[in-house]
């Protein structure tokens, strides 16, 4: 009697799944090999030949290990990314935008500090509200099992999205002006605009969101571990 379980355990030892899931895969593959082997014996094939033929179904164990890992983890990674980053991040972004719109309706105006090229935009009530959203983003990411890095990304997501839009719009603006023959802004004007808008709309809100996110992380790390919630969702199968 061949010990298929031991053989498969050795060949699939490097399978990077949780212990229970790995054991399940090994048991399933071993059962398949065992059935193939027994069927071959019933057909009258000699034992060494049956072992050889059963094993010939896998020519590259490392490749099988890799393909099983990808198959098992593909949906898992995507699901994790959605719950740990995209949902908390977009919620933080939406709430930040809604708060800004509400403040503008209520009559709070952007304050410009300084004059000329060194003027910096300050939207104080908005900046004061952002730490709450940063903390919320970090909390939701943490609930879904997000790492510290993912929690930070989720909390500062609104400024990342805005920075992306900035980076996209500046070259488009230059190209459009060049096409229509309008005077392209000099480097000094572009640099001043980046400095002013970048500080007012990116750096300060980013710092505000990050402060909330870090505070949220600090409070969460003091409470009962949020990782337990996540582990439960990780082991859920289809």
């Amino acid at each position, binding site marked *: 009697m061949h010990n298929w379980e031991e053989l498969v355990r050795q060949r699939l030892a490097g399978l990077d799944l949780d212990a229970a899931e790995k054991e*399940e*895969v090994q*048991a*399933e*593959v071993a*059962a*398949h*090999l065992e*059935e*193939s082997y027994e*069927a071959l014996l019933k057909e009258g094939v000699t034992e060494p030949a049956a072992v050889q033929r059963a094993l010939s*179904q*896998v*020519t*590259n164990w490392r*490749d*099988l290990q890799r*393909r*099983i890992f*990808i*198959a*098992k983890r*593909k*949906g*898992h990674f995507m699901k994790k990314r959605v719950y740990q980053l995209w949902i908390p991040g977009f919620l933080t972004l939406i709430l930040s935008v809604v708060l800004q719109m509400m403040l503008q309706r209520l009559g709070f105006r952007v304050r410009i500090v300084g004059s000329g090229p060194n003027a910096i935009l300050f939207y104080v009530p908005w900046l004061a509200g952002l730490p709450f959203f940063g903390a919320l983003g970090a909390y939701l990411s943490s609930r879904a099992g997000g790492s510290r890095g993912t929690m930070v990304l989720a909390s500062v997501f609104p400024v990342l999205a805005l920075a992306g839009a900035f980076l996209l719009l500046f070259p488009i603006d230059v190209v459009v002006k060049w096409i229509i023959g309008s005077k392209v802004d000099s480097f000094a004007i572009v640099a001043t605009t980046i400095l002013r808008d970048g500080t007012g709309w990116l750096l300060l809100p980013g710092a505000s969101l990050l402060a909330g996110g870090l505070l949220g992380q600090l409070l969460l790390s003091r409470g009962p571990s949020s990782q337990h919630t996540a582990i439960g969702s990780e082991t859920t*199968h*289809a």
Partner: protein
Amino acid sequence: MIGSGIKRGTAELAVLSVLQDGPLHGYELARRIEQQTNGALRFTLAALYPMLYRMEQQRWIRGSWETSANGRKRRCYRLTPAGKKKLSPLQREWAELFDALQRLTKAAHA
């Protein structure tokens, strides 16, 4: 040379079609497909399990451990409602493709 997309499509169709008749474990599933296609479709272990796990992630099939009459534990796969939903358009698409290919080959020989 058959492209990987076509291979994957036929393999998925085969698995879903066979599971339509009832739950089966991996070895039995591969054996049924081979029998029902007169050996035209054959799944080795290395090809079968990554595909079953992928289809499980897509929630087309669901695997659960069951004990057979001889006391052996086997992971049996069954079709989910999503898998049933996936099967009918897949069958139609493949039938259309084979019809088209048949018409093409008939036209070429005429």
